[in-house]
């Protein structure tokens, strides 16, 4: 154990320690001053972000092989910290408005972010499992953060039951992988596969169960049933955070795991993942068509985007694996920015007691609040993948990877799905701009900042996406 071990996961440690500090501070903070907890959390995340950006990717492992600090994990660290910062911005005014400004929210949020970061670093199946739980358990609690709002609690319970169900699959999968390779460390697993001592039957069963388990987390169809209900019931700022970050964490785990097992089991597993991708894109987009509640619509939208990302995951099983990972990272960033922005609009438009969440309530909102409206337009276009948004580059990159690895069918399905998605995303625009209505939105400085900032980022980064592409391409995984 040396200082290097701690440095390797410094961003994680910073975030977790801040979480504990916020908790202690919160205990002593008087009722009206909980904003300090938000501030402290923001500082901690900023420090974590800085640590992640300053860190140099290493090729070795730390903590006796438990974690790595490769470019991939540091990239995700930065992503999670940034998403967390925005998540706090979303939450601050919202909970003040809802009279639920509590320090616990920020502590748990930080713990969850720590778990997500750890997921990116994990190099041992026990770390995957613990990171999964560390990110999930706080989210279960936060989903039910409205203690007196039944919808919130029921969402939390549903999330909890299905989340634990998926953990069960992950766990059994890990047991099978352990049975097949006599190791829970990725290095050991790879070594066992290489020298032929691995029992591929167990390994296959285990890998399949792991895929199923994490498919729950990224809400791939048919393991998506929890998503719309939880997204609808949970506090909106949390949903915004969750839909951006949890997905990334789930994919981080899937990428690292599949990169390890694909060499041995590619021909068995790749078709399964392909099937998931196709189903997710089709079902997610089709069901989104009939949604009338903005939170549910965005929930299905997030399912659909998981489908596009799954294409990249299939492509990990090809010679273009490096590009596939970079494309997924790029897509995740683009999606996270647009998604957080869209949720900031939702938070701004949400009224007390959960009103203001139907599409009808958005009538005329775009004309009344042109900045908010234009921002939402940008996000919707980015979701569709119209050029001059980050979403376009993301899709371009993903489809390029798909074609490169010969996944023509999936690419065509993805194209068709994008077309379908144009319909429901544009419906939001239709309501906001083409209809008259009495919609009102909150003019909060943080929310406006997030909405406009995200929109600007989506457009400006789309003009010069080269740098982000470069960074994503350099965020390579350490292959054990």
């Amino acid at each position: 154990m040396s200082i290097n071990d701690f440095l390797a996961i410094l961003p994680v440690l910073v975030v977790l320690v801040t979480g504990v500090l916020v908790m202690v501070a919160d205990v002593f903070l008087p009722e009206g001053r909980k904003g300090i907890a938000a501030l402290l959390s923001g500082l901690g995340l900023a420090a974590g972000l800085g640590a992640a950006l300053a860190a140099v990717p290493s090729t070795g492992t730390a903590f006796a092989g438990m974690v790595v600090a490769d470019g991939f994990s540091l990239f995700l660290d930065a992503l999670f910290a940034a998403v967390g910062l925005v998540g706090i911005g979303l939450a601050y005014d919202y909970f003040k408005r809802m009279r639920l400004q509590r320090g616990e929210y920020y502590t748990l949020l930080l713990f969850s972010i720590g778990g997500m970061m750890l997921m990116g670093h994990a190099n041992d199946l026990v770390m995957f499992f613990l990171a999964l739980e560390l990110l999930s358990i706080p989210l279960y609690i936060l989903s039910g953060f409205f203690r007196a709002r039944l919808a919130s609690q029921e969402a939390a319970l549903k999330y909890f039951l299905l989340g634990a169900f998926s953990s069960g699959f992950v766990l059994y999968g890990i047991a099978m992988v352990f049975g097949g390779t006599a190791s829970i460390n990725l290095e050991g697993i790879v070594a066992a596969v290489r020298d032929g001592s691995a029992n591929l039957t167990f390994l296959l069963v285990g890998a399949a169960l792991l895929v199923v388990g994490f498919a729950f987390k990224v809400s791939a169809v048919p393991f998506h049933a929890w998503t719309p209900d939880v997204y609808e019931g949970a506090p909106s700022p949390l949903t915004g955070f969750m839909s951006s970050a949890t997905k990334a964490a789930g994919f981080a785990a899937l990428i690292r795991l599949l990169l390890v097992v694909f060499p041995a089991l590619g021909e068995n597993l790749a078709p399964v993942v392909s099937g998931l991708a196709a189903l997710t894109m089709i079902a997610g987009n089709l069901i989104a068509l009939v949604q009338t509640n903005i939170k549910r619509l965005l929930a299905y939208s997030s399912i659909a985007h998981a489908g596009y990302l799954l294409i990249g995951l299939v492509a990990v099983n090809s010679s273009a694996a490096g590009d596939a990972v970079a494309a997924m990272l790029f897509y995740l960033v683009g999606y996270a920015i647009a998604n957080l922005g869209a949720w900031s609009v939702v938070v701004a438009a949400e009224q007390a007691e959960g009103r203001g969440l139907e599409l009808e309530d958005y009538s005329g909102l775009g004309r009344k609040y042109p900045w908010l409206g234009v921002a939402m337009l940008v996000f919707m276009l980015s979701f569709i993948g119209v050029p001059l948004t980050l979403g376009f580059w993301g899709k371009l990159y993903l489809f390029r990877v798909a074609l490169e690895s010969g996944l023509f069918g999936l690419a065509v399905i993805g194209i068709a799905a994008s077309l379908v998605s144009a319909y429901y995303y544009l419906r939001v625009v239709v309501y906001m701009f083409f209809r008259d209505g009495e919609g009102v939105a909150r003019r909060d400085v943080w929310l406006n900042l997030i909405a406009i900032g995200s929109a600007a980022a989506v457009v400006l980064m789309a003009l010069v996406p080269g740098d982000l592409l470069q960074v994503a391409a350099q965020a390579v995984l350490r292959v054990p």
Partner: protein
Amino acid sequence: MLQEYLPLLIIFLIALLVGIIAMLLGYLFGPKRPTRRKSAPYESGMVPYGPGRRRMSVRFYLIAVLFILFDIEVIFVISWATVVRQVGVPGLIAMAIFLGLLEVAHLYAWKKGALEWE
């Protein structure tokens, strides 16, 4: 391996048997003349009303769950205790961090009044 625990099993079975036999004897040879009054629950001679079981207060739950969360650490403390010499100071520090985190939880519970009965 199993042989080592055979005595345990035998004791367990004997205990089970004794209980069953005792109940069986009572059931077979005891007098049974049930009336309505007799099979009603005993409430100090009062006429019973309402359901037999009352719900307990949530406070019990809170205390119980806190007990379990703090109880879990026993597993780790025992493992540490057996190797306390081998793992030395680094082990001590690790354990201190672990317990420190749980102490923060304790602080939270305490300050939030979760341990008060009211």
